[in-house]
């Protein structure tokens, strides 16, 4: 196990996992999806997560996104232990600080791209006109101008993925958790998305944690964290963006 040292200048990391385990099933069917993970991520970092299939990347992302609860260990967000928050507080944490791009997109069926992107804004009580403007902007950012009124069924996998990215970004979260955000995109599109993420990271200080299988994409990150069998096995400083 490798402890991730926080830079001395920033004593409270944005994210801190301490000996986090996630166990599915029990007895012979027991699966340790995460097995004592320690992890720290500072505000403003762009971090890539890599590792073979089944190594626990998505499980970790779900826990960091407050969508799932760890079996053991503690998760602090800006120093606040998430275990101590109730369901509503965790929902508000998601609403105000987190953007999540799911591996399987998880868009609402039979709902236009625009309405999908608007959805988090509705829960934030953004007025209608403002909501429309922000949603249009977010879709333009991921190159989907002209596709606003198509439903997920009428969009390609890559387009759906970009709608999911737009939905995660439209609220201007502090932390973007993206589970393979470029998994369905061609190389050119992937680089566009990465350019977008690095831009937001630089200009707005958006912290990004993203799962990827591609070394090309991981190369945009400041650091690369490697998972294997539910453990963090390696953390390497990457070249970083630019």
């Amino acid at each position, binding site marked *: 196990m490798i402890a991730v040292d926080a830079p001395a200048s920033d004593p409270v990391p944005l994210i801190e996992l301490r000996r986090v385990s996630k166990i599915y099933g029990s007895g012979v069917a027991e699966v340790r999806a995460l097995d004592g993970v320690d992890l720290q991520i500072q505000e403003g970092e762009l971090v890539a997560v890599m590792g073979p299939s089944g190594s626990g990347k998505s499980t970790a992302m779900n826990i960091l996104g407050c*969508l799932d609860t760890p079996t053991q260990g503690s998760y602090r967000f800006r120093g606040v232990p998430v275990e101590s928050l109730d369901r509503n507080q965790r929902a508000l944490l998601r609403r105000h600080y987190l953007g999540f791009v799911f591996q399987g997109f998880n868009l609402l*069926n039979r709902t236009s791209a625009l309405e999908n992107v608007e959805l988090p804004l509705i*829960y934030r009580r953004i007025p209608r006109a403002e909501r429309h403007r922000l949603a249009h902007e977010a879709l333009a950012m991921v190159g989907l101008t002209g596709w606003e009124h198509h439903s997920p069924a009428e969009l390609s996998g890559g387009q759906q993925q970009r709608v999911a990215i737009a939905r995660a970004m439209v609220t201007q979260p502090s932390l973007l958790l993206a589970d393979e955000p470029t998994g369905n995109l061609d190389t050119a599109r992937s680089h566009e998305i990465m350019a977008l993420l690095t831009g937001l990271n630089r200009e707005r200080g958006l912290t990004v944690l993203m799962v990827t299988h591609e070394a090309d994409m991981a190369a945009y990150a400041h650091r690369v964290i490697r998972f294997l069998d539910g453990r963090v096995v390696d953390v390497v400083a990457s070249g970083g963006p630019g």
Partner: protein
Amino acid sequence: MLWNALLLALREIRRNMLRSVLTILGIVIGVAAVIVMVTLGDGATRQVASQIESLGSNLLMIRVGQRMGPGQRSNAPAFSLADALAIRRDVRAARAVAPSSSTSLTAVVGNRSWSTTVTGTDDAYFTVRNWELEVGRLFSISDLRGGRAVCVIGATVRRELFGAMDPIGETIRLKSMACQVVGLLRAKGQSTMGMDQDDLVLMPLRTYQRRIAGNQDVNLIQVSVRDGFSTEETTKELERLLRERRNISASEDDDFSVRDLKEITNMLTGTTRVLTALLTAVAAVSLLVGGIGIMNIMLVSVTERTREIGIRLAIGALEREVLLQFLVEAVALSSLGGILGILLALGASIGLAQLLNLPFVFNLGIVLIAFFFSAAVGVIFGYFPARRAARLDPIEALRHE
């Protein structure tokens, strides 16, 4: 928060048009079926009751002989006018006493003829049977005393013999007698048993006895009981009086019968009430089937809804926001279905009532029951699966299969 929930719910309804329409349809059919059936049943009951009422209120019918079976009576000496007068004098509960005798005869006017029932009676007949005159007059004292050849006719007889002509003052031939029409009765229509009540010719009893029957017999005495007196008590009193007058010893049975019209009323309204209950049962089944339909649609969509709830929770919706949205949606759909069902039912019942010639009786109770039942089904099966889903961890809801 409510406004937001309404916004989300309306989006959801629009997004799932087919599901929404099917849900509404289930409620519409259930609600409409119950209301239509109960309304028509009530109408039928009301009609039967009012038809019987039109025969005369609190009416006792005294006939000679005992009923032996359908259409058969035992033989016994007829009543006389004196019997009727004795009742009029001695029975305080009797508001009006109408002695009468009837027979079937062919009535002729010019070259038209019509077979009808001719009844000899007196003015009390109009009271006991609730008859009113359309035009003309009733029998006068001198008509009755002198046995004059005058008659009052029903609407059917008028139509068949006179057409549109004014019958007053015209002459009808009955057997060998000529009789002048002095009055026309207001039409009553068919009786509950489907008999034409307007097919009759009435004349003074004395005229009938002398010119048609050729005897002094009275076959039927109808007694209208005063309000506030029980028909049962009056029946007993009549039986006592008549047994005495007819010299029936204590060991013998009555050779006449007193029939209370209220019994017939109760019997017939009882029958329609059973019918209404039956219709209501059928309607309740259709309401239940509608409810099961709604339930199925809601349950089938649970997987999809659970996933959707997972998505909403994941992007920061609170449990109570999601629940409020689904509750608003279920209530909106159910109420819309309920209201459409009520409108449809009212339209259909008014139409059917007209078609079947029944009075339209608005039954608020059943409208409310039907509405709240279907709304409850919609809300329960729309809301509770949503509640279960909203209590899951978002990731659990998203993984739901």
